[in-house]
């Protein structure tokens, strides 16, 4: 998921405007949340097994949720720019 967020960020600068915006949007606003859900489901399963212990100082679920929220916002920016290009 972190990799996805990094790609989403880099996509703002690396690729052609429209493509990068589309990629940023798809990664940040779609792929990122899906990955988060996947993570949560897997995390729930681990917790249900009763043998799972979270990090003490860095709650991973909260961190992943924050990063995903950031990526989602960036994805929103991307989709706005993409929409701008589409409305020229």
């Amino acid at each position: 998921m972190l990799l996805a967020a990094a790609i989403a960020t880099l996509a703002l600068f690396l690729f052609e405007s429209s493509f990068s915006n589309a990629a940023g949007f798809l990664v940040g606003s779609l792929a990122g949340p899906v990955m988060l859900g996947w993570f949560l489901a897997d995390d729930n399963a681990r917790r249900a097994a009763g043998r799972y212990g979270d990090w003490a100082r860095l709650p991973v679920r909260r961190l992943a949720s924050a990063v995903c929220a950031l990526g989602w916002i960036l994805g929103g920016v991307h989709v706005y720019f993409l929409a701008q290009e589409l409305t020229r």
Partner: protein
Amino acid sequence: MTHRARIGSIAAAFSLAAGMAIPLSATPAAGQGSSDGEAVRADEVHTAFQPCPANTEGVEVVLALDQSGSLTVEDPGGRDRRRAIEAVRQFTEILGEDADFNIDLALLSFDTEARLHAGFERISRSHPSDEDIAAAIADGVGDTDYRKALEAALEQFENSSRSGDRNTCRILFFFTDGILDPFNTVARLGHVSAADQRVAAAEAHAEELIRDACLAPASYKNRLKDLDVRTIAVLWGESFRRRDNSHQGSMTIKSLQLFLALTADETSELIRDIAYHPACEQWASGEAASDSGASGSGGDSGASDSGSGGDSGDSGSSGSGGDSGASDSGSGGDSGDSGSSGSGGDSGASGSSGEGQPGAGEPDGQVITLDDIDGLVEAIEEVGEELDLVKRQPRLDCRPVPSESEIVGDWPGFAIARDICTVDAPEDGRAYVSVSEIADDAGEVDWGLSSGLSAAEPGGEARVEVEPGDGELDLHAVSTLFPGDRLSRSSRATLVVSIEWRPESDQSDVRAIHSPPIEIEYDRDAAFQPDLTCKDWVQASVDRDELPGSVVADEVCEVSSKGAGETSLVVVGDRLDWEPVPCQNGDCSTSSLRADLTDGLTYTPFEDEVRVGLQWRSPSGALLWSGADEDGQAADRDDLEDVVIEIDLSQVEPPHLDCSDDPPEVAGSGGEVPEEPVRVDTGCILRPPTGGQVTVEIVEGDSSAGDIAWALPDGAVTLGPGDDEVPLIVVSKGPLPNMRFDDSVDLKLRAEWQAPGIEQGERVEEELISFHLDFKARSNNLLALLLALLALLLAAVLTWLVWYWLLTRKDRLPDADRLFAWKQRFSTTTDDASGRVDAPDLRNWRSWNPESRRVVRGANGKSLKLEDLEIQADKPSFFDIRGLTSGDRAARLSVGRSGWIVEAWPPGRRAGSLPVAFQRGAVVMGLNASGPTADGAVWVIFNRGDDWRDLVRDAKMEGMFRSLADRLGRPEEKDMGEEALPPPRRPSGPPPRPERPRRPS
């Protein structure tokens, strides 16, 4: 007539004949009162012959005494001559202790020969010595020959150590008792015939003596005048009155003609009727001595006539001689008249050092006639008195031309001639110095004197009083104010400074001392007229702000105003019409010239010859002086300043269209098409010319973007001299359409310089510029925002669906194989007395001995079963995001048989069939509803391998157990519990939802 009176009368004529032409009544001091207020009449002024000029600082006297044999009769033993010489020695009383004033005496005697007895030496009681006197008056036997005496006297003067001193008064005291008789022919005439050759020789000798005295360049007269020797001829009259025969008469006339020539004293009794000898007429006519050669021819002829006439026949005719003398006298009178007019020139020729020196025709001596030889002593004493006065009198030293004459003060000012005279105070008495005008061009000013420049005021003082002890006084002539605009450019005044001196010894004796004429020139223009100085060559700067422009030659002329009136310049050029540039900030010291250029001037440098003249107006506006008329013409070219002004139009710097080698290639840089016209910096800079103007416009345009018109702001750019350089920017004509632009534009800029002398299209500069248009079409921001929101919404929905699928795809129940359970039964008891119900097993859980039970998975795999308990996975609702994402193992418990769950841990949200979250395990308490008392059980579900006690202890179950026991024991609780207790389980259908037991407060 006394000698004094004779001297006075002679000197009066002397003074007038000297050409000084000073009417006594015109002398200011003569008509003004003396210091004590007593008026001085003109006839009181003593104008006696003054043998010494006013500036005399020493005297040389040559006493030449006749020692011929005749004196043995007239002055036997030389008694009178001794008395005379001893009287001379009395002059020493005059000298006193004054070492500065010296009287030197030389004593000589003559007859046929001349004998020097004492050379020049300061006169004293021992000089001349008694021996010298005795030798000089010893009886002689010789004849009378003036020539030897004159030559001996001149030799003394010329060889004197003070011969060059112009302030030395030189007196030749010449005493003779008889006429010229070198060969003793007169006295012995009775013994010689008229035809005797000795008579002829004597007359020829006399004739030659006269000629030598007057004609030759080194004549006695010239030598005497060069030394400024005043000759006092003392003649015993008796011998000069005899006319016993023609020879005697002829020799007498020639003798008197000689003395007349030497003294120019025409008033003497003996000489009054004697005419100048033709050879000596120039000394009476006033002609310059240098002209004597011309007269000399006449003299020669006369001399030759006389010489030939010296033949006894001619000269012997006394009648003819007398006639001739009469006629000569008449001519002499005429000459005397004309001589007065010529004296000025002679006086001028005498120079500054010759102050008081008589010119030609002026009396430079006197003839004293003695009726008796006793008068010789009186004559000597008269000279001594005169010398005494000379020593005591004030001294006047004037310059014929002052060192400095100028006009001072504000317009019109007045003149000051500085240091015209220096006056030495007299030794006694009072002196009054005044100035009088002989001539004044200005005619409207008067003159006065000032003894101090600092206090000089217009007009000065009418007279300056000088007293003994005042020392040396410098005098300046000061005029009254000039007559304003009527003051001519240059004026001249001739002044005479006069001193009236009343000696202390004789208050009635008023002596006058006059300076020679003093020429004063004062220049109005020098004082007030501005000076104009112009450069010879100037290069004009071109100013072509407005075509055809003009040229300005800066600081061409310098006008130095002297604060009187206003000045203006008249400027005329050959090719251009020049005019002075008005003064800037009041500074008119320099003047620049300006001229308008005319069409047709080329850029070839040319020169314009300009004449500049100055016009000067007085403060009242009168034109005082104009160096040029309005056409630039002047009578005197010197009044014009010629200036050559070079006009070089080629010095004009042309305009320049300077375009960068790397013009901007992209306009827009991928941005959106602006809604206003597009401005593109061409990268070109237009530099203005220093002359004319330049216009830049777009002449061609080519664009791949279609019909997009481009232009310069305002259509064209025009620059002239003084403008700043501007970058050229092209602007599209109107906004570009909203579309994508990726096109190139080529434009051609054309700069044309327009100036006089440049044909249209002659000076054109073109630059081709290219740039690229790169614009995107403008977007719709609102629509883009809506689309973005929509996309985000879709993404969120999609995400949620995926989440729901992912998170609900597996149940969250623990693995049944990993669970283990203990079941502890308990029962309730009832106190009969109080009816209290209690569950003691719940109060002592540590003593439990539970039964082990297995947890098994349900048939559908979606639930866990523990005896009557069924634990089902709790699937959250679609919108329960928290429940969906939560990691808690939520489950729903239900009781399979009669009974119900009264408590569960971890606490669910609803008792009974409430969800319960599995963490380390779960504790479930249930009650059996059958019987008067209720039995119940506690199920402790935990992970296999754990100790259930740890679970109960860690979860603080003890409190929960007691709480339940307490609630069972309270009637009301019981009632409530009964009310809360669900009815016995029906065979089918879900059990009623029990009320959650209330915790004890």
